[in-house]
């Protein structure tokens, strides 16, 4: 993955327009990605990151810290 995709996932997971959300999502994403890379492999880690974003989009489209009117 390019950096842009990683940044995108973090913004979506954290919630668009939310600074604290981006920080938390960055830590979360980096942890998950490194964890999966260590125990499985890089491609699976990318899949996991994208699935994380997809799940957040389906369950809570505003992201973890997003405000309601953005939905």
């Amino acid at each position, binding site marked *: 993955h390019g950096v842009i995709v990683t940044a995108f996932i973090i913004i979506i997971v954290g919630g668009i327009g939310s600074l604290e959300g981006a920080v938390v999502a960055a830590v979360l994403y980096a942890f998950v990605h490194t964890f999966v890379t260590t125990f499985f492999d890089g491609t699976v880690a990318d*899949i996991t990151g*994208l699935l994380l974003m*997809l799940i957040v989009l*389906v369950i809570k489209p505003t992201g973890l810290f997003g405000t309601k009117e953005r939905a």
Partner: protein
Amino acid sequence: MPNRLPLLLGAAALAVALILLPHQLSFSQQEVLVFLVINVLVVASYRLLTLTGEWSLGHVVMVGVGAYASALISKQFGVWVPLSMVLGAAVAGVVAFILSFPLFRMKGFYFLIGSFAAGEVIRLCWKKFRYPFGGPKGLKSIPGFPDITIGETTFAFWNAVNFYYLALIVVAVALVFLYRIEKSRLGLTFHALHWQDKLAESVGVNAWRMRMTAFVAASFFAGLAGALQAHYLTTINPTMFDVEPMVYVLIWVIVGGTATFYGPILGVVILTVINEIVLRELGVDQARPLFLGAILILSILFLPKGLESLVPKIGGLWKRRNKDDGNSPGGETEKA
């Protein structure tokens, strides 16, 4: 009812031109022509989805689903290639059906992102699983389209010119289907969902189901395009279906315009000619994406409705010059 004769004559002239075209081109240009015809189907099916107002970033992955499915079905199970192409397209439709459950909970920008994520997941699965998808190197030695013998002559489809005719027939039939869908009641409902989705829902249109139908139909035809590509190249890999070709599809569609059926087709034809023939003749091979980006920016700035918006203007000019009677100054305006 206007006179149908000029239209028929124009269609006949176009058919003759398309049949004679490959014999006027160099070998590499014939290859480009085959991919151009396949890409026409890709953008035309993409337009079916944009009719509902949703823009997907996973369309090229749907092309890939069709390509992989058709390749695997014909290679692993020895299914007759024309049949496996249809089956591959059907698999793309089924995948789209499954994806529409999570994806159409979102709208607009979120659908764009969601379709990108879902497409990337599918693509990375091809990259990850060596069996049956072949891993990063993809699938090799996919059976080609079987030779057709009519009387004495045999048409072999590894030949670019013969495959061009095959692709032309398949794409023409698919375009007729897409056009019929668009002009039917279903297509009008898609339009209604695009412009007034709350109103359409209030009169009893099931928005989710309509979007799902559009997505499945668009993916079916995209899968058909992918199957054509797989059996022509006889090799496919995950990199062929990543974000970059998707960006090209978006550029074609945006420059061409999406308000009319011919808009995206105009976009893909003109941009491919500029990209592959004009810019190569100029000798700027490495800088071609630069020029394409410049064309995209310029067309958004000066031609926001796409190349298709020029067609009625040219038609209007033509009419005024022929008939100078002053009424209908803009020609026949398209209702967007």
